[in-house]
């Protein structure tokens, strides 16, 4: 008994079954693109070619950060056969246990699963000599190979914090910057970070076939598909390597910062944060990271652009300029000072000096009382409420760049702090405060914080008689065009004419004859016409901070400097000598005052600085 239609049914079944196969084939071969990508990843090995990082030059063409070649030792655990651990260790100059440990960690069951056929970095940044020793015997160690990459090399010990370090990207960094892959390096701080895109260059790759045992075979398409690495572009900075190096030496064993700006351009000549990171540490930040991080003086903290310090008496100049602009102060006005400024039962003390003083003398001798009067007159002018006047004062201060980031191309810049009227409203109650309540602001104390960069920029503004260029560290060059904002003059809200009125006071502070009462006579260098203003900032952390800003020469200034030495005492004790030595170095190349230089270089203030 047979059913004559059955063979037809069976043939239909055949067609359906093969149709299902064909449909599935259609799906995986034509519709789903995923398999093609998998195939590429599978059968090709992409060996990355790491580009040379761009070189960082100083303003005079000296190399600040160059490159040298080092090697990573890569290991493909799946391809490793039993090998002479001791032999490998001897070649690499390591303890056999280090290698054994690594191999053991990679050969656990779960690790093997996870790693698969991937290649991992076993040791990074081996010096060339070590690697060459390995290469001679590499045939004995299948599964291991080396990979050249460039490492930073610093011919000058200058600008550790400024340059910043380069290190391998970690998972959070990759998450934020998806264009990076594990194993890539990126600048993390300083110029290396700001100019990462310029410096990094373009990674290339060589493509080889590989089989399922991860053995590398022939060159894919005879190398046609390879991509050479494009080296990063070089960068010229505004830094003067010699000056930077000198500044770092001056700041050795002191905590604080030293910033020098070329007033005519806003270019940062020197930016020292002390203690800083030695360039030797930068190249291999990984192995020194703990040491750096545990240093009580926090070398990673770039004081020059991040620390918010009370500016101290330096800030008197700001109030002076505001007073002049507001018309409540005239250079000829004299105010008495009887060892301070007395209001009610309180006194804001001052040092002993002759009295009364006019404005120029007050600047020269840094009289506290004088500027208390000025500040009080600004805020209590009879035309408006204290709060309104203070808001205007705020606007003046902000126009100098205080209280917010200046917008330099330095990545970690912070803005310091300038209080608003609302701040005191909250603190004391609305209209419950007046000039005397906040009188400390007149002498740059109290609720106020500036970075050393702010102070240097302020100094440059005075040097320019009323305007500044946003300070920056990348110099305009063919490779790197700087943004237009660095070429714009920023005027303050104070008429440029008033700046000329305060400069003589600053000049006399430095250059007045001994005994005349100039606070910064120690900074005087004959022929350089340095103009400066000292500051002695009280602070809750021990001795006063020593502050000094200066520019030189008086006419057509070439350099403006701010020195801020934590717990250094009077401005004239440490900051003024340091700043003036720096100016002298920049303008003359060497010092006429070797005794002072020696005192500074040997000076050690670390004991005075409370470790945080």
């Amino acid at each position, binding site marked *: 008994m047979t059913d004559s239609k059955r063979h037809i049914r069976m043939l239909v079944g055949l067609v359906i079954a093969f149709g299902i196969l*064909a449909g599935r084939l259609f799906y995986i*071969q034509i519709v789903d693109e995923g398999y093609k990508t998998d195939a590429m990843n599978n*059968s090709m090995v992409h060996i990355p070619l790491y580009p040379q990082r761009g070189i960082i030059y100083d303003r005079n063409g000296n190399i600040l950060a160059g490159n040298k070649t080092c090697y990573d030792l890569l290991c493909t655990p799946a391809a490793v056969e039993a090998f002479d651990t001791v032999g490998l260790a001897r070649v690499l100059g390591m303890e056999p246990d280090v290698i054994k440990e690594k191999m053991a960690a990679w050969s656990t069951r779960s690790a093997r699963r996870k790693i698969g056929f991937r290649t991992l970095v076993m040791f990074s940044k081996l010096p060339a000599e070590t690697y060459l020793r390995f290469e001679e015997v590499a045939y004995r160690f299948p599964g291991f190979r080396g990979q050249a990459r460039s490492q930073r090399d610093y011919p000058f010990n200058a600008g550790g914090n400024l340059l910043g370090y380069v290190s391998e990207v970690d998972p959070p960094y990759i998450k934020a910057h998806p264009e990076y892959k594990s194993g890539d390096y990126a600048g993390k701080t300083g110029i290396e970070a700001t100019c990462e895109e310029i410096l990094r260059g373009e990674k290339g790759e060589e493509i080889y076939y590989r089989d399922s045992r991860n053995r590398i*075979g022939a060159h894919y398409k005879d190398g046609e598909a390879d991509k050479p690495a494009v080296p990063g572009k070089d960068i010229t900075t505004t830094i003067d390597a010699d000056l930077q190096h000198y500044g770092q030496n001056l700041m050795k064993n002191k905590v604080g910062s030293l910033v020098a700006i070329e007033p005519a351009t806003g270019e940062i000549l020197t930016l020292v944060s002390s203690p800083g990171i030695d360039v030797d540490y930068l190249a291999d930040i990984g192995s020194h990271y703990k040491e750096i991080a545990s240093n009580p003086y926090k070398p990673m903290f770039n004081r020059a652009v991040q620390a918010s310090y009370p500016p101290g008496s330096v800030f008197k100049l700001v109030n002076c300029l505001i007073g002049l602009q507001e018309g409540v102060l005239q250079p000829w006005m004299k105010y008495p000072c009887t060892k301070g400024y007395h209001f009610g039962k309180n006194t804001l003390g001052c040092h002993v000096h002759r009295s009364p003083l006019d404005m120029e003398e007050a600047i020269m001798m840094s009289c506290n009382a004088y500027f208390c009067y000025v500040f009080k007159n600004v805020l209590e002018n009879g035309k408006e409420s204290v709060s309104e006047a203070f808001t205007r004062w705020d606007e003046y201060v902000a126009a100098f760049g205080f209280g917010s980031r200046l917008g330099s191309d330095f990545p970690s810049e912070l803005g310091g702090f300038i209080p608003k009227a609302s701040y005191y409203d909250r603190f004391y109650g609305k209209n419950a405060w007046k000039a005397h309540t906040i009188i400390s602001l007149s002498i740059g104390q109290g609720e106020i914080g500036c970075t050393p960069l702010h102070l240097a920029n302020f100094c440059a503004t005075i040097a320019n008689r009323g305007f500044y260029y946003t300070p920056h560290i990348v110099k305009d060059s063919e490779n790197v065009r700087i943004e237009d904002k660095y070429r714009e003059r920023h005027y303050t809200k104070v008429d440029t004419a008033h700046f000329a009125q305060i400069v003589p006071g600053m000049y006399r502070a430095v250059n007045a004859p001994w005994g005349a009462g100039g606070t910064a006579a120690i900074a005087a260098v004959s022929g350089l016409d340095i103009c400066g203003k000292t500051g002695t900032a009280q602070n809750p952390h021990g001795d006063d901070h020593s502050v000094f800003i200066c520019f030189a020469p008086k006419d057509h200034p070439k350099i403006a400097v701010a020195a801020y030495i934590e717990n250094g005492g009077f401005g004239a004790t440490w900051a003024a000598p340091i700043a003036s030595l720096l100016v002298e170095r920049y303008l003359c190349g060497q010092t006429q005052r070797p005794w002072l230089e020696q005192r500074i270089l040997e000076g050690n203030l670390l004991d005075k600085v409370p470790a945080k």
Partner: protein
Amino acid sequence: MTGRGGILERNFWSTVDWWLVGLYLLLVISGWLNIYASEYDPENARSIFSWSMRSGKQLLWIATSIGLGALILLAIPVRFWEAVAPIAYTVVCVLLVAVIFLGTSTKGSHSWFVLGPVSFQPAELSKLTTSLILARWMGRYNFRLYRRRDFWMTVAFILVPMLIIVAENETGSALVYLSFLFVLYREGLSGWWLFVLFMVIVVFILTLVFSPYAALWTAWLVTVICMAASAGRIRPLLCIGLPIAAVLAVLPYLWGLLPEGNILRAIHPSWLLLGVVGVCAVYYLIRGLREGNMYRLLSVLALLLALGITKAVPIVFNNVLQEHQRTRIEVLLGMKEDLAGAGYNVHQSMIAIGSGGLTGKGYLEGTQSAYGFVPEQSTDFIFCTIGEEWGFVGCLLTLILYGFLIARIVMRSEDAREPFTRIYGYCIAGILFLHVLINVGMTIGLMPVIGIPLPLISYGGSSLWAFTAMIFIFIALCRNEKKYF
């Protein structure tokens, strides 16, 4: 006229089915080219004829196979096959047993005889001898499939070698014996048997992937629907059957929502389902007995079978199957992702095939195949090379060649006057079909990984010889048919 099985007849050329010979040659040659490609190493390219390459050896197998084919066509009297069938069957069954004790163990299975350079797998041959014995047994003049003795002998002929092969740990080869269901179907086996087999597989998979509950629920619902449809009782199905099914479907979920310690938690949904199944079974049993309705009685059996499967599967799966078989099934059913282990082969194979695209990467241009990502590349996974280097077009063409070959065999069998030719033809058509289905399905992740070759294409002498013999015996049988017309 010359006698039967004469050496070279006058009409030799016109009596040979050149379609079959042509398809055979196309597949064999494409196999040879692809075996070369699967081993081709761009860095160390050797000639396709090189003896150190599998393609070189395969060429020898092909030459000897064509010789074998010619021998079958020209030298062996066509009646020989029918006559020799019982002896051949017995001898091969003995060999199948012997190989368990005497054979060489490869990858855990004892199925190969190794005689010096030649290795030989009796299982390959047993498909041929089983086909011959079935053709002879079922082709008898008075064979009736539903006669008890005829039926059980048929089943025994299939099961004996199948079980021995299972004992050899060659489950894959044993699975091919399911292809004899096709010939049984052609010879009158009820289509319900195939349906039942299909349902058994479905229940098996449901049990593993979801739960015995889901599997039993499905089996019960299908049975109820079939019963209702056969009796034309649609309304009770819609009014009673389906609502109960729906309630049963959501019960486990509702039960899971019950708070711990609730009295209702004592009533597990599976007891309710068992109750419903039991009630249905009793109902069908009573009505079946009263009305003498065979189908109703069978449905009771079906329900019991489903129940048995759902109870047995977890036991079989966990205790009887071996670790690798378990993993393969789990990977295929998507219960486990194991790209490095059991899933590796299939994943790599799908990558190779998938990367071929529409027209492939070109001959010898494959990257996945040549670089050894796919295991067993020249034998079981040869289809990867085709997929990668010839693309969708090549795959389709290969399937079409097989389709034509199988369809041609089916058509010629249907036309055959002699039951022996017809039954033998259906046997080998079924074997070819299942081989292609399982092998190709395996490479594209539709079937579990079962180590059976792609007929005529995969590397290997044993398999090529066996398929050559199968096909050429059929050609010889068909040639004999011509004489009648």
